[in-house]
């Protein structure tokens, strides 16, 4: 404990001295921040300085081992660091799938060489990663994927297509699932491989969504050579690696939604007060009021469930299948809340663009449209319900139906 207090004092002093003043009080969120990469898009020069100084100490990935560029901090030390960062309300120096997806996967499944090669650039924010899982014919049935990787000496030649790859057009490397043994049964012939997107033959095409935004891409592979040493977790063993990562992704998604739903009650109330107005000191329209409370209660119960899962995990009591629960409930909660916001706004929620609409209202409507995808991406609600039924409730298998 004494050590931790020393550590805290040291961190605090260092931050007080060096953390750019312009960033204090601007915490940002999980989707808005510094993504890094070969074509970095720093919001301000201070964001760039902030990344550099934190990366130097390994504090962009505080708990990763020092030999791979990480901070080497214990969990307790990291908690101290995070609380000090929150104290100054600093933005994360770096965000992205390198830190939260491929990094942890390499730490668990990667070879010593792979860790030494790929982890330090992630820590320094030099390489931005994306995830190549889904294919046009393989959505919920991921194991039916077809992207072919044919061995050719110490290389594999990749041909095929990925889809729903988040930010592929801004990423440098992709980790993807490929079929290395077309003769084997579904899951058995799949490998997990890392590909430099600068390799000739890789092209990306953004997908325009109903919200008008394009956060996802198609990625095409046309005779793309990848190196055999970039296969992670062993040849034809990709399914094991992928499943571990998917579980991790679901938990992350749940926690993201846990954070994103915070403050929903206040936002909805503000909207309703504008659109409907009060009567006798209370928000008029008891039906809208009831729905706002429902949303607020859903939010609170969800947050408490996130906390309970974390507390139980710390106490060594795993409630099981938490990731699927969080994914299903968190995404639907977010959808309901955004639908309710648009509904309360009435005609103010119908604007697409241009004059005549408040920019906040336009953003709210786009957010609603975007949220419609939450229950599809990252494993559909239907797939999560299958998982809960089978793995938590122990209901008999109906043949993947």
């Amino acid at each position, binding site marked *: 404990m004494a050590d931790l207090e020393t550590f805290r004092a040291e961190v605090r002093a260092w931050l007080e001295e060096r953390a750019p003043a312009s960033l204090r009080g601007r915490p940002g969120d999980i989707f808005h921040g510094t993504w890094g990469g070969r074509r970095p898009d720093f919001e301000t020069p201070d964001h760039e300085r902030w990344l550099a100084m934190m990366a130097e100490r390994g504090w962009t990935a505080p708990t990763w081992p020092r030999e791979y560029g990480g901070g080497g901090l214990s969990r307790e030390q990291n908690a101290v660091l995070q609380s000090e960062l929150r104290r100054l309300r600093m933005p994360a120096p770096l965000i992205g799938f390198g830190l939260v997806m491929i990094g942890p996967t390499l730490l668990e499944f990667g070879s010593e060489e792979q860790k030494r090669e790929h982890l330090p650039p992630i820590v320094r924010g030099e390489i931005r990663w994306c995830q190549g899982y*889904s294919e046009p*014919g*393989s*959505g*919920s*049935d991921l194991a*039916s994927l077809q992207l072919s990787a044919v061995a050719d000496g110490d290389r594999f030649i990749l041909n095929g297509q990925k*889809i*729903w790859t988040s930010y592929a057009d801004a990423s440098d490397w992709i980790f993807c699932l490929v079929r290395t043994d077309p003769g084997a049964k579904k899951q058995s012939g799949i490998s997990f491989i890392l590909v430099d997107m600068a390799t000739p033959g890789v092209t990306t095409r953004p*997908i*325009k*969504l*109903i919200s*008008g935004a394009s956060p996802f891409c198609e990625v095409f592979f046309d005779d793309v050579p990848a190196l055999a040493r970039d296969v992670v977790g062993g040849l034809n063993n990709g399914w094991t690696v992928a499943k571990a990562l998917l579980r991790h992704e679901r938990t992350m998604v749940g926690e993201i939604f846990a954070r994103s739903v915070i403050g929903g009650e206040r936002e909805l109330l503000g909207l309703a007060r504008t*659109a*409907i107005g009060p009567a006798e000191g209370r928000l008029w329209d008891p*039906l809208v009021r009831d729905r706002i409370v429902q949303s607020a209660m859903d939010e609170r119960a969800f947050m408490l469930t996130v906390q309970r899962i974390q507390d139980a995990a710390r106490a060594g009591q795993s409630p099981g299948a938490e990731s699927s629960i969080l994914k299903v409930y968190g995404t639907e909660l977010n959808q309901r809340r955004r639908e309710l916001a*648009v*509904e309360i*706004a*009435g*005609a*103010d*929620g*119908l*604007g*697409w*663009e*241009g*004059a*005549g*609409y408040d920019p906040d209202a336009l953003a709210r*409507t786009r957010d609603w*449209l975007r949220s*419609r*995808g939450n*229950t*599809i*991406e990252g494993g*559909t*609600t*239907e797939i999560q*319900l299958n998982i809960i039924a089978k793995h938590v409730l122990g209901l008999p298998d*109906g043949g*993947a*139906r």
Partner: protein
Amino acid sequence: MKLALTEDQRLIKDSAVTLWKDKGAVRRLRSLRDTGDATGFSRELWAELAGLGWLGLPFPEEHGGVGLGVTELCLVLEEAGRTLAPEPLLATTLLAGSALLLGDSDAARSAWLPGLIAGDVVGTLAWQERARRDDDPPSCAALATPAGDGAVMLHGSKREVVAGVQADLVIVAAQHSETRELGLWAVPGDAAGLLRTPLSRIDHFPCARVELDGVRLSEDARLGGAALLASALDRATIGLAAEALGAMSAAFELTLGWLRERRQFGVPIGSFQALQHRAARLYIDLELCRSAVMAAARTADQPRVSAAVLGQAASLAAARTLDTFLRVADEAVQLHGGVGMTDEHDIGFYLKRARVVASTFGDAAWHRDRWARLAGY
């Protein structure tokens, strides 16, 4: 009141099916959007609708109409709704047209109705000022101030006016500055002091904000009062419900097609029981919507129907179709999975249209509340 189609109605329905199908369904709306078409709908098609007599369906022959009713018009609207046709058929016939037909001014009726039926006049009704439909009649700050000789000057601002920029006739709701009585006034599209600003809404149907900065009108431009506005809105609500019925049917059928075609885990996803049951429930709700819409249209066509009976029929049709359309569209996207989220696929257009429909003439909760008011509780 028979809830089945007569032979004549069946013929109209078949023609409507054929016409709208030939026009290319949602592709047409998409192309109007992508080309940034200033009109926002097809003038050629409009002329064709007039040629078929459809703009005159609910008007008596004495005014140049076909002498049928809302029932027949709803058959056309339903098919238009299937393809998300942005033509202001509903605004022209059931908003403006109803106000002219049922209003007090013979002068306005004979001045406007023949042109409207002939396809020369696009009409609309500017009634909305607040973001949500509130009181009944709707709250109205726009004023009609006496300007001598029975003439008035209109001042005020209206929003969400369907085809407000394109309309040749904008019927405006305004409160008399002295009597505080609500009135509907026929304003020519080219009147001095009438300012129209296009609004870009998520459904990409033509819509506008309309400002009245001292529009001078003579006495015979007044069509009626609050009761007339209520009738016009109720008839339009029924038309909107028919349109929504068509749209949700199309979205549902698209989804059924996808469920049959898309394969995962080696089988069509439509063989999964959880999805089957959801589809079956949507189907049931859709069938109930159809009954409510058919009954409402026939109620509107009953001679001397009371305002309360018409209001309850309209609110029933609205409450059911608005909710069901949203739910069908929402489930349609979910069941389509990733492709349903892409702009490239048509299904998203239905989701956006459902949202607009849901707050065009009051949302479902509003209509339920009104049902209770009309039933005395």
